[in-house]
């Protein structure tokens, strides 16, 4: 593939675009203003309710505001849902964006728009090489990890809707080299409901006992049987080579083994796959993987059944009992852990979801799809925490000020990673693509 922007060129161009002279750049070089080196994308598959997370409306009418109260966070004036008590003590690290919107009411379309920053084309299909790359794939494209280290990894599930593999979380026109590799989180109580795997995920345990990995060749043979069956994958060799490098002993292999982690740290994240996946994301990024995307919920929406964010029925019970406790604990543990290790400054944490949920509560005590306004968040990686950007109106029904789009949110994340959002890359056919159509939000 022809690439016309190296990361260095991009950095240079972003300086030029901003009109900064070199001395000005030097003055800006407090530790916190250096671009982030790693990124963790946390995806709330199904569409997390903005009402019940980061944009509670305690003053709204009872048929809208729902059962939950709002609680103060560690930043005066910012409130979260009462079922995010741990996360509320990390608001100082987070920039909450409460004025996002788009026009896609279906899961596939909403997820595609949110995760790629581009509106979905009609008739969209998974693994199509004309699709736009996901944020994780795109950020990974600009990194230069060590040999045997993938540019981007996803854990612990693929996103499906009623058995259909979703488009959006892959490398798209960047090519299969930049498909984030799926890994199973090796521990934790799974999300209830349906989660599916294809034959392609990379399980570093792979049912291979260490004693059987005697040579690269036997390993390759094993991998061919394990992951090499889907012929449509055009660059399988690279994938196999990487898997072999990882399995034969690398920092990534070591990071994957959660048994190596301090049991107290593991307990801090919670004995649930939601928590252990966040821990894995920290370990993998620490070991040199530039981007890790975590699916924070069951992999298949399965008609709103199971533990995912598609809460058409029993929104409150499901959030209170199942989803928010795991989310609250795991995200808070991640923030604590990254900060203690001095990694939060260098690690951008990005939250994404399909859309928000309807302000009006339906007859099944649920909330339905609502792209007209929703909330997301960024943390770490030079993002100024303790702030809210934009707002929704008093009913949480539309943006009140600073309305912004998934493209703007992507531009912000790219800028935090030191990538000029207006860079161009070329696809297999040498066609130029501007990687992002949005403008960075002033969150730095």
């Amino acid at each position, binding site marked *: 593939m022809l690439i016309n922007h190296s990361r260095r060129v991009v950095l240079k161009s972003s*300086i030029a675009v901003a009109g900064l002279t070199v001395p000005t750049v030097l003055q800006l070089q407090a530790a916190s203003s250096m671009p982030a080196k790693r990124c963790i994308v946390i995806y709330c598959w199904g569409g997390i309710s903005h009402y019940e997370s980061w944009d509670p409306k305690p003053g709204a009418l009872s048929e809208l505001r729902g059962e939950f109260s709002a609680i103060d966070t560690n930043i005066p004036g910012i409130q979260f849902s009462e079922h995010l008590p741990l996360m509320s003590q990390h608001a100082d690290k987070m920039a909450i964006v409460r004025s996002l919107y788009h026009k896609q009411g279906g899961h596939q379309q909403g997820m595609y728009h949110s995760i790629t920053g581009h509106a979905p084309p009609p008739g969209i299909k998974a693994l199509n090489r004309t699709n736009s790359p996901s944020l994780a794939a795109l950020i990974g494209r600009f990194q230069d990890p060590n040999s045997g280290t993938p540019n981007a990894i996803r854990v612990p599930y693929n996103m499906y809707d009623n058995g259909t593999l979703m488009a959006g979380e892959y490398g798209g026109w960047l090519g299969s080299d930049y498909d984030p590799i799926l890994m199973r989180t090796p521990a934790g109580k799974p999300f*209830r409901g349906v989660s599916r795997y294809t034959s392609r995920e990379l399980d570093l345990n792979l049912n291979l006992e260490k004693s059987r990995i005697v040579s690269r060749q036997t390993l390759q043979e094993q991998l061919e049987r394990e992951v090499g069956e889907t012929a449509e994958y055009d660059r399988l060799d690279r994938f196999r080579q990487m898997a072999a490098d990882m399995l034969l002993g690398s920092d990534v292999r070591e990071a994957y083994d959660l048994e190596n982690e301090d049991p*107290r740290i593991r*307990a801090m994240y919670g004995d649930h796959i939601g928590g252990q996946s966040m821990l894995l994301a920290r370990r993998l990024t620490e070991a040199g993987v530039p981007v890790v995307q975590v699916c924070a919920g069951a992999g298949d929406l399965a008609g709103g059944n199971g533990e995912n964010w598609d809460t058409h029925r029993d929104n409150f019970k499901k959030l209170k009992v199942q989803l928010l406790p795991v989310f609250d604990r795991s995200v808070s543990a991640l923030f604590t852990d990254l900060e*203690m290790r001095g990694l939060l400054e260098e690690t951008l944490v990005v939250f994404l979801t399909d859309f928000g949920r309807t302000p009006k509560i339906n007859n099944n005590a649920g909330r339905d799809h609502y792209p007209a306004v929703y909330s997301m968040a960024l943390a770490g990686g030079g993002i100024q925490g303790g702030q809210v950007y934009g707002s929704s109106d008093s009913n949480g029904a539309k943006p009140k000020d600073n309305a912004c789009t998934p493209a703007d949110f992507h531009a912000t994340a790219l800028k935090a990673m030191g990538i000029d959002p207006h860079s161009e890359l070329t696809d297999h056919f040498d066609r130029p693509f501007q990687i992002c159509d949005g403008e960075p939000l002033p969150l730095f």
Partner: protein
Amino acid sequence: MFIKPFVSHILLLVVCCGVSYADETMHLKAIESVGGKVSRVVGGREVSFHLGRRKVSDADLLHVAALGDVVILNLKRTGISSEGLSSISEMKELRKLHLELTQVSDEGLIHLLGLKHLAYLNLYGTKVSDIGLRQLQELDSLTHLYVWQTRVTQKGVDEILAVRPTLKVVLGIDLDLIRIPDPNAPQQRPKISLAFVAANNVEDAPRSGNGENIEVVFENRSQQTVKLVWIGYDGKPKLYGEIGAGKSRVQNSYENNTWLITDVNNEALGYFICGAERAVAVIPKR
């Protein structure tokens, strides 16, 4: 005609940096030979050893110092010692320094006091203490200091904050306060009980509906072994197993599923219909 300005730029670079091209190549090779990675960042260069082979000795740092424009240095988890930090004192442009999980102790910190641009210093997992922290009060430019899992105490943190109130010092949490759950501890008995509906015929049990994924704990308090039969979505019974007298069984299920209980001769005794929550299903004495 394009060559001349190009050459003069190179010369300017060499004069500015005080490192000849040949020397520079030699230093870069030496760094890479021990697994170091050198990359260009805004304002200078970054040298990282933390993802390499990590067998960095104190002498290897002389090559890093010789580069002259290193602004970020990552020595995390390397074999660097307090003495080795003496060569770091020459890296005047340094803004970020990772020394976490090394053998560095209070004695080494003295070498950092001349680093007038140092903003980020990571000492997590080292042997530094409040005494070392006191020395760091001299670092005017420091904005972020990480001392989790060291000998530093809250008192030491308070001391440096009294002098540098805007400094962010991360002491971290005490891991011993985290409770580790016992994986072998028995799970609590569910508080919700499912109603046992007595039935004489298998056909009395309604077909299963679907819903949320839940768990049911069957407790057999009858005097006999019973069979656990799931009534499918199509109404067909499917045997799941037997539960001995006085025994229990944890069963994965879904809301609105029907579970029929029969005796060992397949005579129906009754059935349960699951709710939306984890529940206990008591098979009563006859």
